[in-house]
């Protein structure tokens, strides 16, 4: 877990890694989410539409990012807000590294609030998802 005291503006963290994301995981996500757009699990259809392979759904990337952010923060309740923009496509087989940069901290330290820029980087070094998160972290001591 991480504490408010660990966070200074500009500091970078690796939140965690997920993947390789298999087609089985993508099919499970489609089934659970009810998003049956075939580009997320049917390779033949994805190729027919001119895509390079089946595409990982944006909310699935968001869920993996939040899972890694939870591991980093030590609890889910620390995470108050998170937003993402899906600026690039990721296909089956992707390995994600989720990263964060501290952009602001509560100036008097009373609330423990920390703002982060968050992002997903694939194994080719491409940043395909960017966003922001607000957390409330405990103080050391």
């Amino acid at each position: 877990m991480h504490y408010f005291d660990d966070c200074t503006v500009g500091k970078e963290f690796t939140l965690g890694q997920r993947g390789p994301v298999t087609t089985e995981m993508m099919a499970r996500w489609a089934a659970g989410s009810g998003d049956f757009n075939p580009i997320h699990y049917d390779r033949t259809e994805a190729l027919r539409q001119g895509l390079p392979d089946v595409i990982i759904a944006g909310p699935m990337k968001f869920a993996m990012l939040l899972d890694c952010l939870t591991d980093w923060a030590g609890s889910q309740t620390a995470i108050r807000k998170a937003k993402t923009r899906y600026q690039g496509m990721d296909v089956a087989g992707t390995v994600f590294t989720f990263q964060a940069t501290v952009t602001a901290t509560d100036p008097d330290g009373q609330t423990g609030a920390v703002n982060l820029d968050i992002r997903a980087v694939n194994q080719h070094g491409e940043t395909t998802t960017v966003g922001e998160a607000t957390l409330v972290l405990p103080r050391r001591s």
Partner: protein
Amino acid sequence: MPEDSLIPPETMAMVGTSTGRGAPKVVDRNTIGQFATAIGSANPLFRSDAAAKAAGYTGVAAPLSYPIYNVPNGTDRDFDLKLPLTRRVRGGDDCEFIAPIQEGDTLTAETTLTEARHRKGSTGDLIITTFETRYYNQRGELVMIERPTGVWR
């Protein structure tokens, strides 16, 4: 609205309207487990009663974005938006996590169309839609707000 907007007036008239509360959905342990498996999570909060209780939950915890995944939440399909562009991708998500959600909770969603705008992008016409979904638990407490952006081309 600009004169040349691609968005039909009947669709613009829906901005600010809501579908009303959707069907209630019970948060269950199997679906939580399936979510965790799908994303490759090993977090014990999602599978162990002991771990979840130690963290203050009354049953196994739901992952933060679980409501997006498994609660009928009202979308462009429910609104049956009339738009001249038909290929939609999800542009982004924007969430406020207000209270913990766990196994046994019953969630109800209410979705409002908050924005529809036409923009000329580098690859042609785009329509951007934003919805706001508010999720409530069985005690009527607001537990989460989610604002997904759709990009139509």
